[in-house]
C-alpha cells in the first residue's frame, strides 16, 4: 500500500538536492542572514532603549525574524522549482523519464513535493532562533503559528508557479527570468489577491490593505479558509498546467491548457471579488476589479499568445475556427479571450447588484485584450522566435507604462498618465467616461497593428519569392 504512494521523482530529486554542496551553502547562508538580522535589530533596539521590557522586545524581534524568513523563503522557493524540468530537458534526461509509466502529473508532483520538503527544512532550521525568542516570553503562540502557515502557503504558491514556468520554458535561464520577472513585478501577488490579502493582514498590512476593513462580513476563520482554499486550488491548477506542458509537443494539449487557464481566471475573479466585499460600490471597486482581471489576463494569456504557432491563412474566418483553439495557434487567442470574457460576464451575474461590474468595464477589458493580442500578433510574425516575441511584448507594455508614468510624475500633468493607458490599464479613471474613451482607442490600435503585420508579411513573402526566382 505504501509502495503505491511512493513517488520515485520525489525521492530522486530530494536525494540529488540533499547531496549537492550547493544546498548546504544555501542553508547556511539563509541561517546566517536570519541570525544577523536578529542580532542587528537586537543591538539597535537595545541601544535605542525603545523597549523597557524584554517581552515587548521579543515580540518585535520575532516579527522581524519571521518577516525575514518569509522574505527569504519567497526568494529561494521559486529557484528550487524554476529549473526542475528545464534542467532535465537540458541534461537530456527528460525523454527517459517521460517514457516511464509515471503519469505527467506524478512527475510534476514529485518535483513539487521535493521543493516543499526543502521549504519545510528551511522553516525548521530557523526554529532554534525562534525558540530563543519564545524563551524571552511575551509572544502569542497563535499569531506565531499563523505566520508560519503563511510562509508555507507562500511557499506552496511560489513553488508551483516556478514549476509551471519551468514546464513551459525550454531553457533554465529563460525559466528563471520569467519566474522572477513575474515575481518582481507585483503581478504575481495581485494575481492571487486573496492570498495577498491574508498575507497583508498577518503582517500588519497597509491601512488600505487590511482585510478586516475590506471584509467586515467575514470572520477570521472564513478569511483563512478562503485564503488557504484559493492557494491550494491555484496550486493544483498550476501543477495541472505544468503537467500538460510535458507532452512531447505542448500544442497537443492546447485545449486543456486553455481550459485550466480559464479555471485559474475564474479563481482570480473570485479572489478579486472577495477582495472587494464590503467596499462601497464606487469606482474604486471597479478599478481594483479591473486591475486584477487585466493582470490575470496578462499573466496567463500573454505567454499563450506567444507560444502559439502562427497559422498560415489570414482569413478572419480561419482565426475564429474552434479547431484553432485545439492546436494553440496565435490566431485562436481572440477566440479564447472572448470565451474568458464571456465566462467572466456570466460569473458577474451571480454577484449581488452593488458588486456587479458595469458592462463598460467588460467592454474595456475586451478592447484592451484585443489590443494586447494584436501587438503580440505583430511581434510573433516579426520576431520569429516565440520567446523573443514574448519578451518584446511584455517589454513594450511595461516600458510605455513606465515612461509615461514617470513623465506624469516629473511634470505633474495628467495627460501623461493618460498616455500610459496605451499599454497599461492605469488606475486613474474617476469617471466611467474615462473607460469609454479607451474602448475605441484600443480597437483602432489593435486594427492598425494587425493590418501592418499582414502588410509587412505580404511584402516579405513577395521579396522571398523574387529572391527564389532569381
Amino acid at each position, binding site marked *: 500500500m505504501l509502495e503505491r504512494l511512493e513517488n520515485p521523482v520525489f525521492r530522486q530529486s530530494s*536525494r*540529488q538536492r540533499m547531496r549537492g554542496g550547493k544546498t548546504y551553502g544555501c542553508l547556511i547562508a539563509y541561517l546566517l542572514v536570519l541570525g544577523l538580522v536578529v542580532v542587528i535589530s537586537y543591538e539597535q533596539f537595545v541601544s535605542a532603549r525603545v523597549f523597557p521590557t524584554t517581552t515587548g522586545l521579543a515580540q518585535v524581534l520575532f516579527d522581524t525574524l519571521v518577516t525575514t524568513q518569509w522574505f527569504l523563503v519567497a526568494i529561494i522557493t521559486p529557484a528550487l522549482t524554476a529549473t526542475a524540468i528545464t534542467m532535465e530537458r537540458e541534461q537530456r534526461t527528460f*525523454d*527517459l*523519464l*517521460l*517514457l516511464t509509466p509515471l503519469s505527467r502529473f506524478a512527475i510534476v508532483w514529485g518535483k513539487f513535493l521535493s521543493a516543499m520538503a526543502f521549504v519545510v527544512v528551511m522553516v525548521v532550521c530557523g526554529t532554534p532562533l525562534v525558540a530563543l525568542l519564545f524563551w524571552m516570553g511575551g509572544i502569542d503562540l497563535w499569531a506565531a503559528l499563523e505566520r508560519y502557515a503563511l510562509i508555507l502557503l507562500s511557499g506552496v504558491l511560489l513553488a508551483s508557479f516556478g514549476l509551471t514556468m519551468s514546464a513551459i520554458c525550454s531553457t533554465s535561464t529563460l525559466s528563471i527570468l520569467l519566474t522572477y520577472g513575474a515575481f518582481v513585478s507585483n503581478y504575481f501577488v495581485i494575481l492571487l489577491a486573496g492570498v495577498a490579502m491574508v498575507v497583508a493582514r498577518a503582517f500588519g498590512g497597509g491601512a488600505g490593505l487590511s482585510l478586516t476593513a475590506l471584509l467586515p462580513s467575514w470572520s477570521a476563520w472564513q478569511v483563512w479558509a478562503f485564503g488557504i482554499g484559493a492557494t491550494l486550488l491555484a496550486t493544483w491548477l498550476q501543477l495541472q498546467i505544468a503537467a500538460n506542458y510535458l507532452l512531447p509537443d505542448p500544442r497537443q494539449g492546447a485545449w486543456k491548457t486553455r481550459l485550466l487557464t480559464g479555471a485559474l481566471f475564474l479563481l482570480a475573479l473570485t479572489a478579486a471579488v472577495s477582495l472587494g466585499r464590503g467596499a462601497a460600490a464606487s469606482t474604486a471597486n471597479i478599478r481594483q476589479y479591473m486591475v486584477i482581471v487585466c493582470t490575470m489576463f496578462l499573466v496567463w494569456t500573454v505567454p499563450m499568445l506567444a507560444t502559439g504557432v502562427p497559422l498560415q491563412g489570414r482569413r478572419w474566418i480561419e482565426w475564429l475556427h474552434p479547431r484553432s483553439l485545439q492546436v494553440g495557434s496565435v490566431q485562436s487567442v481572440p477566440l479564447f479571450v472572448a470565451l474568458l470574457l464571456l465566462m467572466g460576464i456570466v460569473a458577474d451575474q451571480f454577484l449581488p447588484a452593488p458588486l456587479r461590474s458595469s458592462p463598460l468595464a467588460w467592454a474595456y477589458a475586451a478592447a484592451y485584450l484585443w489590443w494586447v493580442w494584436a501587438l503580440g500578433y505583430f511581434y510573433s510574425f516579426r520576431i520569429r522566435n516565440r520567446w523573443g516575441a514574448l519578451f518584446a511584448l511584455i517589454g513594450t507594455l511595461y516600458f510605455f507604462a513606465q515612461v509615461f508614468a514617470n513623465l506624469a510624475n516629473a511634470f505633474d500633468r495628467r495627460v501623461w498618465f493618460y498616455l500610459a493607458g496605451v499599454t497599461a490599464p492605469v488606475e486613474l479613471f474617476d469617471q466611467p467616461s474615462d473607460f469609454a474613451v479607451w474602448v475605441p482607442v484600443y480597437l483602432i490600435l489593435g486594427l492598425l497593428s494587425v493590418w501592418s503585420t499582414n502588410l509587412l508579411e505580404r511584402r516579405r513573402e513577395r521579396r522571398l519569392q523574387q529572391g527564389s526566382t532569381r
Partner: protein
Amino acid sequence: MAIVETHHLTKQYGQLVAVNNLNLRIEEGDILGFIGPNGAGKTTTIRMLATLLEPTSGTATIAGHDVVKEPEAVRRIIGYMPDFFGVYDDVKVWEYLDFFASAYRVPRSERQQLIEDVLALTDLSHKRDDYVEALSRGMKQRLCLAKTLLHNPQVLLLDEPAAGLDPRARIEIKELLKELRNMGKTILISSHILPELADICNKIAIIERGELLISGEIGAIMRQLTGSHVLEIRVADEPDTAVQVLQSQLGDIREVRVEDGVIRAHYVGPPGEHYRVVWALAEKRVKVLSFAEQPTNLEDIFMRVTQGAVQ
C-alpha cells in the same frame, strides 16, 4: 502479425520532410539494422515509434497498439535508448537504476535482485557504487542499456548504441545484443557503421532523406543486389585497353574504376556468366593476370543503394 508496423509514416518539420511515407515491418524476434547516412531520418523514425514525437501523418503500431492513441501501452512494451542522453548528477549507479525500477513499478522486494541482474548482464557490477557522472562514455552507454532492460521490454529501440565507443567496447555491445537476441527480444538498431550489423542482424532497412530505399532479409537483399558483383581485374600492362574493352560491354558492366592499377568493375549481367568478360578481354589480347569476384558486404550494398538515391 508484425510486432512493429508503420504505414505511410511521415514527419515534417516545416518545409523539411524528415521521414517520408515509411512502411516498415518487423516480425517478432527480428533484429533489424536501420541504416542511413547522417540526417536520413533514423532518429526521427525511432522517436516516433517511442511515442516521443507525433507523426505528421501515417500510423505506427507496436504489438498492435497505436503509438499516438495508446502511448502508455506502447511504452510498457518498448525499451528506448536515445542516441544522446544525459545522466543525473550526484547519483550512484545502483540508485540510478533503482530510480527507474521504481518508476517502472517494480516491487521493492524484487528491485535489488533485478538491479544486480542487469548490472551483471551489462558487465557493470563492479561499478555499482560509483557516481554515474564519473563513468566513461562507454560505461554510460552500457548503463543506459541496463536501464532500458529493467522493465523487461519486448521490443528494443536502440539509436546508435555503439556510437562513440572504442573497438573493444563495440564488440562487447555486440556480444550483449547477441545475448538479447537469444533471449528472444525484437530489436531495432540504427547505425551508420554497417559491417558491424552484418553478423547480428537478420534484416536490414536502408533509409535516406526520409525515404526507405530497401528493406528485408539481409540474404535476400544481397541476392537481389548481387545481380551486380564487383570484379577485380589485374592486367600486365597499362589498364587503358582493358578499361576500353570493359566500357564497350556496357550492357553487362557498369562503373569501371582503376585504383592502384587494379581495375574494379560492377558486373550486372546474367549471374554466373561473367566468364564472357574474360572472353572479351582475351579477344583483344589483354594480358589478364588475375580475375576475381569480390564478395559483397553490407558497406557495398549501402554505398550502392544510397548512391542511387543521390544520382
